[in-house]
């Protein structure tokens, strides 16, 4: 049985200055109720690891608008001019990481690997200051693993033991982030008794999940 918490209780666990992974892709498959609670609490100085910062005042964009974020490790900010503005005026340190590299770096963090070796970005400004490792005469770009204090993820369904399923493109970064957060808080749309999700349909095992956001808790 996992501990069920309200979005407010979840947000209260997260201190100013925390490093957060937040699932979702342009807000699709993001844990919106936890984000709202973080905004309500006025958290500051957060580092966000996520695919993007969504749109102004939507999803992670709400944390951008309220100035909660001082660092963002993301692949894309093109649809949120407020993040771009923050990057340019220096109020948000933005590390832009190629999307596939970002996913693998999070996975490396969660899977106990020392980082990744990729061709993506090699020879571009996205590789500046980064290590190139030669293997059998071929150059590979090294990128270090990413971990977080908290992974805040969305799920379609949870069971009482924390097993999770995802739906369609709302899956995205959620399962891999569930591996890489020191504390994992899942916000499911539905909650079911144990056994309702067959073993082959569990995408994230409950052993990875620390807290479940309770249904309907306001």
């Amino acid at each position: 049985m996992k501990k069920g918490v309200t979005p407010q209780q979840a947000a209260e666990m997260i201190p100013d200055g925390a490093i957060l992974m937040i699932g979702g892709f342009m807000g699709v498959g993001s844990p919106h109720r936890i984000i709202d609670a973080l905004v309500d609490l006025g958290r500051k100085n957060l580092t966000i690891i996520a695919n993007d910062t969504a749109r102004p005042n939507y999803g992670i964009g709400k944390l951008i608008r309220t100035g909660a974020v001082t660092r963002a490790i993301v692949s894309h900010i093109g649809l949120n001019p407020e993040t771009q503005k923050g990057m340019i005026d220096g109020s948000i340190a933005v590390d832009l990481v190629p999307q596939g590299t970002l996913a693998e770096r999070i996975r490396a963090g969660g899977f106990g690997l020392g980082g990744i070796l990729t061709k993506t970005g090699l020879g571009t400004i996205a590789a500046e200051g980064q290590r190139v490792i030669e293997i059998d005469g071929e150059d590979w770009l090294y990128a270090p693993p990413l971990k977080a204090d908290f992974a805040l993820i969305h799920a379609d369904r949870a069971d009482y033991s924390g097993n999770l399923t995802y739906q369609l493109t709302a899956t995205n970064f959620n399962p891999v982030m569930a591996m890489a957060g020191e504390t994992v808080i899942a916000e499911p749309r539905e909650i079911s008794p144990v056994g309702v999700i067959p073993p082959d349909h569990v995408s994230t095992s409950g052993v990875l999940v620390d807290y479940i956001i309770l249904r309907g808790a306001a």
Partner: protein
Amino acid sequence: MSPEEIIQRRVARELHAGTLVNLGIGLPTGVSRYIPHNSGILFQSENGIVGMGSPPPEGMEDIDLTDAGGSFVSAVPGAATVDSTLSFGLVRGGHLDATVLGGLEVDEDGHLANWVVPGRMVPGMGGAMDLVSGARRVIVAMQHTARGRPKIVPKCTLPLTSTRRVTLIVTDLAVIEPTDKGLFLRERAPGVEIAEIVAATSASLRIPDYVPEMGLHD
């Protein structure tokens, strides 16, 4: 026929039955309009689906099913959901037959710049760097010029997306193939003279004796 339509119809001819294709947001997305439903071509959207379909009927949108730009899409029969690590495993691992991407500049080395205009536009590379590094074929679909200025240039002035040479450039004026011997003019748009193409191109072009008019997909 609009410049966009010429480009989209010509690119459509490059896509083969039974293959997996990723279309970038914007002009490339429109290529799918010229692909018949029974083509056997599957579209990948890097936010997590193999087998993306056209926009759903009004009122039938699923909030968990969007393309990489966040627009609602549908799924074709036989579609598969993939998380972000698998999505980019398909891209990086060479399982994607072709990617069609917009471009800001392409140069004589066949290098593409399409993700940032320093100081003016900082969208982030999203999946573009992985797509250009990993897809088996990279097709750049763009207008030949921007506000009268050539986009096919001797050397990119904007930061590169990848140091990998793209496979083909399709514009409203021409089809150009980058090779290790330079840029070969392969086709002219209907009614367009070679001189017109040369005038709109600041890169040096290699021009075969015979440059046919491009065929356009119905």
